[in-house]
């Protein structure tokens, strides 16, 4: 069975004005979904990428170190906020697993990529 990477793309500013009840609902929806997948043996894991920015590196002049800039992520409306990895036999199966992922709400996007192992 292959592994598929879910890149959870979103606009982080959408969370700024949530009430505690709404935040609790979000946490609960994801919890229910990941527990369901874990129980089916399909969930490998998930990781949160920190919201505070990040760095961009590119090659600098010969002999010098790389050029490092702040990633302009925090102002961006399209940020990879986190990842899940799931097990599936094909893209179709992976899509079926992800179809009810609570990340699919509003303008959020899930980018699904098969992890090349061989």
């Amino acid at each position, binding site marked *: 069975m292959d592994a598929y990477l879910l890149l*959870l793309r979103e606009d*982080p500013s959408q*969370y*700024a*004005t*949530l*009430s*505690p*009840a*709404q*935040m*609790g609902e*979000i*946490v*609960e*929806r*994801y*919890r229910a979904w*990941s*527990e369901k997948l874990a129980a089916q043996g399909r969930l490998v894991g*998930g*990781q*949160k990428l920190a*919201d505070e920015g990040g760095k961009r590196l590119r090659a600098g002049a010969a002999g010098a170190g790389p050029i490092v800039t702040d990633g302009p992520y925090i102002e961006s409306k399209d940020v990879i*906020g*986190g*990842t*899940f990895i799931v097990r599936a036999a094909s893209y179709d199966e992976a899509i079926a697993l992800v179809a009810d992922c*609570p*990340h699919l709400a509003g303008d959020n996007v899930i980018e699904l990529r098969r992890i090349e192992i061989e």
Partner: protein
Amino acid sequence: MSVAALDFRAAWGRLVGVLVRTHRLADPALAEDAVQHAMLQATRLWPVAGTPAQPLAWLTTVARNHLRDALRARAQEVQFDDASDEAGAAGVIEAADAVAAGELGDDELALIFACCDPALPVASQVALALKTVCGLSLREIAAGLLCDEAAVAQRLARARRVLAARSAPVRLPAGAELPPRRDAVLLAIHLLFNEGYAASGGQTAQRPDLCREAIRLARALAAHPITAHAEADALAALLLLQGAWLGERVDADGHWRLLDEHDRAQWDATMIAAGLAHLQRAQRAQALSIWHLRAGIAAEHATAPTLAHTCWAAIAAAYDALLALDPAPATRLSRAVAHGFAQGPAAGLAQLASLHEVLPAGLRAHGLAAQAEMLARLGRRAEAVDALDRAIAQATTPAAQRLLTRKRARLG
């Protein structure tokens, strides 16, 4: 491995209350910011990384660190001693079960009393309590209080300036301070319930979550050794008895049902029993308060097996007594309706006639609908239809408009 879901809304007041106490804050705003920050972090992290084994302790630590940074940034001396802070943190962990059960602790009650400061207008007290203790968003508060978000924000900002000007840390009032504060708290809780119960703005007929918050607060107030009082029991009784039919008051589409359309078997028997128990405890009062009388009326409705078996004479008598304590137009209107059933529609009509001029805009549709009801029972159908037409025109919410239109259709 499954971790029990944390009720964020119930945790909110608990965490704000703990931070306010352990850091001896006079103004809860900084504690609210810290808890908001911690919950937001949790909302970003937990969905993908998993919920920690002790979510409440996790939130406490993150919120406390954020609060300390904020206090240092304001160049304020960070006022806490580690002993009381650690005790607070331990208390939070122990409180996890209480939060899950929706119980309120001392810290939250102290917060309610701080919000219901008699120096603030009642509407501001309610807005502040909803924000600080119940953790409602500006949008939710605006929907509940029938105003826009900007107005709520302004109201909260003004209220916070009043609180921030105080130097005394938030704590439960005692001695002579307590009774006037308690009156304000009872009033604010009742207003909170009503906002959920009586068709707030917008399309929804009721907001049961606001009602549940109000019931939770009233019961906690009645149960706590410092704040316990017969009037708090009476209020808890009133809210529980009215809350018992929340589920039947609207149909599956969220439209109002008329009282004779309720399936009384669906009324929440547990809430009715709890309400009657509070009403029993409220009997220790030396004098009947408005809460006693209103709870008594709600109990008559809640225990009547059918609408036809409602003891209208008892309800009318209770309204007579209530009128002496609370001569507001709303009381007079309900009293006229009760008399219309107890003594017949002609008696009710006579009371309504003298009342119509003084009804505020928000009650005019109710007054006309009551008039139509009694006219119909007297066989004066054309006049009843006319009154309902005018009621529909005066209705202030879409839900009320739909109900009245249906009533008019029932007249045939």
